[in-house]
């Protein structure tokens, strides 16, 4: 459709505002949100390796940010994002193979993903902070 003919200011489908939040839809949105965060995280990871290759002073600068409150928040958020996207990604692969489409199965696998990713995140935070 050309730009001139396109209707303006009409709500776009899906009408997110009229749906009651459900586990399945929330996890789907979170999968995309963590995916976007991890795409940025992948660039950050590449930057980390490049800083390590440059010099100890440059690396100290980079680590200085990682050690700050904001840095801890980013790294901690990265850990949750990676564990969640990993677990839910495996859930997606099962769907791709044709398994787990029954409503009760989708809810059960959803709660498993929430549980496993939260536990993995908590364990990594505790271990990581103890090592510092």
């Amino acid at each position, binding site marked *: 459709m050309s*730009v001139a003919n396109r209707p303006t200011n009409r709500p776009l489908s899906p009408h997110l505002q009229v749906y009651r939040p459900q586990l399945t839809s929330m996890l789907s949105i979170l999968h*995309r949100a963590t*995916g*976007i965060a*991890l*795409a940025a995280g*992948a*660039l950050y*990871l*590449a*930057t980390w*390796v*490049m800083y*390590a*290759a*440059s010099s*100890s002073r440059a*690396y*100290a600068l980079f*680590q200085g940010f990682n050690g700050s409150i904001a840095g801890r928040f980013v790294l901690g958020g990265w*850990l949750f994002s*990676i*564990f969640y996207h*990993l677990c839910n*990604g*495996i859930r*997606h*692969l099962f769907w*791709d193979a044709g398994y787990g489409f029954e409503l009760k199965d989708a809810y059960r696998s959803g709660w498993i993903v929430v549980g496993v990713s939260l536990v993995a995140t908590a364990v*990594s935070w505790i*271990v*990581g*902070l103890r*090592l*510092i």
Partner: protein
Amino acid sequence: MDRRTPLARARGLGSAKEGVGHWWAQRLTAIALIPLVVWFAISLVMLSGADYATVRAWIGSPLVMMLLTLTIAVGLHHAQLGMQVVWEDYTDGATRVVMIVLTKFLAVLFGLGAIVAILRIGLGG
């Protein structure tokens, strides 16, 4: 009813001439990333508080060089495939084209930069 010619059906590439290439690449990289990401996340947590020399020694060991290169290359490929879908869903026109091209360029740029860095640490120089 299938109106495609026998040749088109055999090729299975559809109207966009790409077939299931994007979908399949995203799944293949997803499967490869399962062990890589588990390994990398555990390694990163264990490196908490490590100094410059320790981190360089870790990156420069032969097995880590290989696995880290794989993690970054496969991870960036998976990321740019996913981001392409995000741009396709939420933007259109020039913005869509510019953002997809930018995403792909950034993935290659940072991927190559990281691989050069890993080689430099591991092989000296």
